[in-house]
């Protein structure tokens, strides 16, 4: 690729983020964000102006900068677990599921043509996942017929109760017997904390000089909506505020790549 006069540049580069563990200001490492179709910076100043008002037109004769804020935004279409966790200021984690055979769970006041989730508790709202088998579904002394009265979704740990069943009706009670395998399930859960970290932009321009940007301390926040459905590639938008880590740490360092 040519290097033109005036250092004309076509911007490309990769974004890396290192999240500060809670209570610290040091990132144990920075991870590649994935593809980021757009990255941009913004610098805003608040100024105090002074005007000479003694004669004729008011003429501005002084401008003083009161404050300066640096921020940025970017978009990623890498909808990874790590990026989803950042978007929701949440935490990647795991939950353990203990194996249990012959679990009997009762449900009252059922609704026809609806799913019932197995194993739901206040501490486990997602219920059991990846069931081994559903042994039986009974209403009183009557055993329901799989495929006719109900259908099983083992992966999501739920049962669909058919409205076409001649055995069950709205308001009935049923008991489900099933087996849960031991499993470690990955999940993303609320953290309810602000996300701080170190952000790096490694330039890889096809045309023009490369400059890397390092922001030692940023606050990362989600920006706008996350379209769960659509005919476009799903994207997550982020904003970041550039903060000063300490009195002797620059907010931003630009380095030739």
């Amino acid at each position, binding site marked *: *690729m*040519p290097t*033109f*006069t*005036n250092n*004309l540049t*076509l911007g*490309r580069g*990769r974004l*890396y983020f290192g999240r500060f563990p809670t209570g610290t200001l040091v990132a144990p490492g920075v991870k*590649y*964000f*994935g593809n980021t179709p757009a990255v941009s910076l913004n610098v805003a100043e608040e100024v105090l102006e002074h005007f000479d008002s003694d004669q004729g037109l008011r003429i501005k004769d002084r401008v003083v900068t009161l404050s300066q804020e640096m921020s940025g935004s970017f978009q990623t279409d*890498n909808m990874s677990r790590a990026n989803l966790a950042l978007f929701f200021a949440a935490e990647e984690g795991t939950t353990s599921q203990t194996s249990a055979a012959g679990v009997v769970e009762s449900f009252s006041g059922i609704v026809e043509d609806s799913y019932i989730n197995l194993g739901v508790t206040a501490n486990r709202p997602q219920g059991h996942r990846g069931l081994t088998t559903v042994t039986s579904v009974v209403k009183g002394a009557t055993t329901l017929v799989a495929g006719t009265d109900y259908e099983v979704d083992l992966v999501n740990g739920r049962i669909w109760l058919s409205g076409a069943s001649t055995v069950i009706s709205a308001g009935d009670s049923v008991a489900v017997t099933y087996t849960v395998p031991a499993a470690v399930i990955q999940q993303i859960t609320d953290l309810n904390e602000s996300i701080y970290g170190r952000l790096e932009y*490694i330039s890889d321009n*096809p*045309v023009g000089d490369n400059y890397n940007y390092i922001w030692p301390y940023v606050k990362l926040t989600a920006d706008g909506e996350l379209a769960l459905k659509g005919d476009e590639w799903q994207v997550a938008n982020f904003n970041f505020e550039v903060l000063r880590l300490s009195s002797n740490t620059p907010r931003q360092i630009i380095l030739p790549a």
Partner: protein
Amino acid sequence: MPSRQLDILRALTAHLEGINPENGYDYDMRGRVFRGRAEFGDDTPLPHLSILEAPRPDAEPVVGGHERAFMSEDWTLLLQGWVDDDKTNPTDPAYELKAAVELRLSDLVAIRVANGLPLVPSAYRLGNRLSHIAIGPGMVSPPRPNISAKAFFYLPIVLKIASSPTAPFTTP
């Protein structure tokens, strides 16, 4: 020194000739990738590829610099490949060769998801000759009277390149 566009075409030709058993492909395209050749006789062994240019230039290049003399343009090329027909399902081999070409072209843009670095550094952006490449979608056709006696495929690729009439040749 070659013009910038010819340099890109030669590099693309060399890259496509990397479709050969040494790189894990079922085809051997060494010596079978041509530039600007639309007609082939029976003496040209199958399969083969030709790199052609789309008939229309980019109507809206992004211009910049002094006198707006520098531009980032989309350069659309058409890769056409011919194969020996499968007698029962004539286009099956064309789909296979088209997939091999797509896979080879993906070297130009593929990155390692873990760290964002090029998966094939030597091929990335065709040796940094390109800003970007968009591959496909293409189409496959059975033999057609008066068009081709063999099954073939078309695969458009859009190369985003920086160019200027003031610098049409590669830097020596």
